[in-house]
Every structure is written in C-alpha cells, then in structure tokens.
C-alpha cells in the first residue's frame, strides 16, 4: 500500500487538534505539559468555545503556552494568574477563562491568589500541573516537593525540619465553598490521558454552567530535573507521588449554598 492510501481520510482515526498550532514545543521529551496542552486544545475545540475562551499562562515552563493553543491568551506575573482570570471573568461574564499553572506558581508565590479566587467561587477553570519541582528555573524545591526528594536547593533531600512539609494544596482547595469540581489526574498512560481529558472537559462544562471554580490538578513528571529518563520518571511518579497525591475526584458538585454558611440571624 502507498502511504497516500494509508492516510486517506476514511482511514484516519486520530488527528492533531485544530487548535494546536504547528509551533515546535519547547518542552523536554517526556514532559507532561505538551500532553495537557493537547487535551486542552481538544476540549476547547469539542465544546466549540474557542471564540470566547481566554487562557492565562503562568510564569514557569508553560509560560509560552500561548504559542501552542490557538486562542486568545494573557501572560500573567508569577502566581497571579487567578487574579488576572478574575479581572477578565468579572468584567466579561460571558467568556470562559482558565488559568494554567505550575506548582511553584500556584502553591507558593500565588497561594493567596488561588485560595481567594477559589474561595470567591470565580467562574474560572484552573489547570494545575504538579511536577513537584521548579522546572523552568532548573530544578529547585517546590512547595509540593516530597520529603526526601533531591532538588538543587535540597541537595540531600527535602527535610521537614529545614524545608517544611510538602503542601497538599488541592486538598485545601477542595475544602473551599467556591469550588464546584476538584480533581487530581495524570497523563502518564493512555488510560490516564483519557480520564484526564474527561476531567478537563467536565471542568470547562462547569464554567459554561457557571457552577463556580473548577480545579484540575495533573500530577506530572519533570524527568529532566528529577534526573531520570522519561520511563523511570513515570515509575517514580507512580511509586512516590501517587501515594501522597492520590489521583481521583476530591469534590464533584457545585459551589456551596450560602444558606449553609451560617448567615447572620436577625
């Protein structure tokens, strides 16, 4: 068979999402960011909302997300994406706004912004890629770095007495009344990717339905800074990160009823 016959339209069962640009990604081989970008592009295309979706890219490895998904973007200062998203969402209630953030961005320098955006129940989607390290700046400790994990600023392993404990920010977020859907996913196997895609789709649907903040954590690898090859990194993630950051839904519903929040009695 000729190549042209094989790739005839009736034989196609998979294609690059229309919204994914042709720009070569700068991500390291094995990195999860590219897969998450692809899922986002697919979901936005499926829901047909590219004409009203605005993405907020972080400071971190995904800073250039705007080069890869063909929608309008704003590039935020480090950690401030939820505030930027709030500004857009509040003044443009008919738009769909999402942030895309790493663990340093979301759970360290931007802790206040993410907690309060989620607590207010801003009608936004948050995509949180947790690779337990600062990828962009070369592998320093992140708030989510595990105890004992070696990074360039914890060369003998993270020590609770010296560096504090890893932060389960998603568990905190799930407690906040403004969140509607909080889930933890991964993209290391085809099955996980399919589940993650469903979760991202559900999160965007929640925003379309104005249910409150929808939050998707993607536990991910940074094999380059973990100093492992991509396959070893996936194994390391499964055996070390999953026990501490277990995949699955943490909250599924809509933001809390204010009446259940003990309003003042007359």
């Amino acid at each position, binding site marked *: 068979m000729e190549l042209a016959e094989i790739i005839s339209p009736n034989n196609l069962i998979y294609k690059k999402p229309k919204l994914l640009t042709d720009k070569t990604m700068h991500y390291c081989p094995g990195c999860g960011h590219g897969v998450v970008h692809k899922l986002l592009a697919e979901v936005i295309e499926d829901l047909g909302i590219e004409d009203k979706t605005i993405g907020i890219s972080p400071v971190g490895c995904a800073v250039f997300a705007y080069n890869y998904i063909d929608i309008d973007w704003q590039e935020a200062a480090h950690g401030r994406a939820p505030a930027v998203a709030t500004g857009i969402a509040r*003044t443009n209630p008919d738009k769909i706004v999402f942030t895309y953030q790493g663990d340093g961005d979301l759970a360290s320098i931007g802790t206040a912004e993410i907690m309060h955006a989620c607590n207010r129940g801003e009608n936004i989607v948050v995509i949180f890629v947790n690779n337990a390290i600062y990828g962009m700046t070369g592998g320093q400790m992140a708030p989510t770095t595990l105890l004992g994990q070696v990074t360039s600023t914890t060369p003998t392993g993270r020590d609770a007495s010296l560096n504090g404990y890893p932060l389960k920010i998603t568990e905190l977020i799930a407690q906040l009344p403004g969140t509607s859907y909080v889930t933890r996913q991964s993209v290391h196997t085809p099955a996980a990717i399919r589940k993650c895609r469903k979760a991202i789709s559900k999160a965007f649907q929640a925003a379309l339905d104005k249910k409150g903040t929808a939050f998707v954590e993607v536990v991910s690898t940074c094999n380059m800074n973990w100093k492992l090859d991509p396959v070893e990194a996936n194994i390391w993630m499964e055996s070390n990160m999953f026990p501490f950051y277990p995949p699955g839904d943490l909250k599924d519903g809509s933001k809390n009823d204010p009446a259940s929040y003990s309003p003042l009695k007359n």
Partner: protein
Amino acid sequence: MGELKLMKGNEVIAEAAIRCGCDGYFGYPITPQSEIMETLMEREPWNETGMVVLQAESEVASVHMLYGAAGSGKKVMTSSSSPGISLMAEGISYLAGAELPCLIVNVQRGGPGLGTIQPSQADYWQSTKGGGHGDYRLIVLAPSSVQEMNDFVELGFQLAFKYRNPAMILTDGVIGQMMEKVVLSDYIPRLKDEEIEEKYGSWITSGRKNSRSRHVITSLELDSGRMELNNIRFQEKYAKMEEDEVLYEEIQCEDAEYLIVAFGSSARICQKAVDVARAKGIKVGLLRPITLFPFPKEPIAALAKQVKGMLVVEMNAGQMVEDVQLAAGCSIPVKYYGRLGGIVPSPGEVVEALEQKLIGG
C-alpha cells in the same frame, strides 16, 4: 452643566468613576482612601451602569485583576495609599510592559514603611521614575482640588487609552479627605462589547473570532533584539507624551521675581503663601505641575530666565526639586522647602522659607 455638590475628594473619585462609564474597580482597604471603595459599594453601580466592584484579597491581586480586565479592553481602575502602591509595583510594571490602559489612584500617606496615615507627597519618585522594575513611565496627574479629583478620573482614562499605558492620579490625604464643592461630570455610558471590539479589537483578548489571529497580552520577549525594539517603542511613546500632554498652571507669574513650584495639596498651600508674600511686597508666582510625568520642563526653563530664584515646596524630603533643578539649569538658585512624616506646612512657613532661602533673611 453638571450637578453641584459638596463632597469629599475620595467620594468624588468613586462618583466620577461611575459617571465616566468605568467597567470595574478592584481594590483593598487602606487609610486614607477607603471611602473610595466604600462609596462605590454603597452606590451599587452594578445595578445602575453595570460597573463591577470587587474587594480583592490584596493590592497585589487588585492590580493583576486590572491587568486581566484591561487586557480585555475594559475601562478599569484601582485605588490605594502608599504601602498598597508598593505592593502593586510588580503589577504596574507588567501593565506598562504589556501596554495596558488603566487608572491607579494613590492617596498618599507618610512613609517609609507603615509610616503614618497623615498626608504626604513622598511617593513622587515612586510614581514618576519607576517604583517597579524596568524602564517604564506612568502618566501621572496631580489634582490640587476636589474638582480636579473629579476631572482627572476621565482625563486619566483618556490618556491611558490614547497611549495604552497605565495612568496614575497622585494625590494625598489632604485632598482625599477634604470636602469642597464640586461640579460632577455628566454620565458617559459604559462602552458596549461591540463598541469595545470596534475601538480596541486589534489587540484585546475578547476571544478569537472570525478566524482572526490570536491575541496575546504579554510583557515577555526573550529575544533581546526584539525586546530592545519594544523598549525603544515605549520610549518613543513616553517622548510623545512629553511633547503633547504636559499640563501645568501658572499663578501670578507675569511679573514674578521669585517662583514657587509645588504640586497637589502643597500647591494649594503655596497659592495662599503667594498672596501672603505679595502683601509683604515680594513679587512671587506659583507654577503648579499638573502632569508630574510628563513634567513641565519648558515652562520652568522659561521662567528660569525671568526670576531670581525658585523654591520647590513639597511634603517630602526633596524629590521634585531635582526635576525642577534639571529644568531650570544652573543660572539661578533652586531651593527646597518641605515637611515630612505627615506634617502639612503652613503658608507662613513657606513665606519664611522663601525669605530665608532665596531673598536673604
């Protein structure tokens, strides 16, 4: 002719925001300007004009909310006082770097640190020469009356959108807390989304429609060659502001042998000082910079050829005096007089300083 009212400076900022068709206010409480957000919350403009008002978790969040909303073409503002403006410095630099129009009101109080809640002008350098990182400028308007608090809200927005640059109203606790009569502006309706699209559709993030190319609001450019070009473009914009947007007021300068230079609340005090000095036979005039950036260099240079000396009066340790010295050159003495830490000088003190420092006591 608009409505005549007796109002506090801070309340007027809120009223002017609603009336000029502002789309959103994001802020965090701090004395001496909390009345701005309180007035807005009481007025509930979301019911009247659709303007959004949000109390943010911090000034850091407020300024980045401005970034998001401004990037979508909305007419948005924040207000704070000195310590809060320091927290906003990051966002202000990003707003300037991404070329986003918005209005920031600083009702100054005395510093450094938590300082005092009393009025001060010690943020002159912070406002006019940076404050945040990188080579950028803000358009800085310095009102000296409650009327100008009203007028400069719309003016600030107009300049901000004209140059796609953040504008600041730099005022202080004196003007913010003072009650005066004011003619309020007439209502301008908020722009509809279609109108925003028509005016700013070439750059805003409003959703990629009709297969136009995507819009990206960013201050990032890793290619140094292109980043230099960005910076050159910014500098050209600032130079254009210096050419076209300088505002100042001259009071009794025609026959002046001495000149006082003062802005904002200090200028109000100096106006009285001019009267007191003239009653004593001293021929003194007042030049009041209204735009602190762009700074009125030329009128000062022109007056430097006329007067025997200049006294710069400011409620700080001598900040604007450096700009006046640069503009005036070295042919005449340019002296400074000021009070610090929240103390407001009296007209008598200013006349005394004029006599001692310039005329020879």
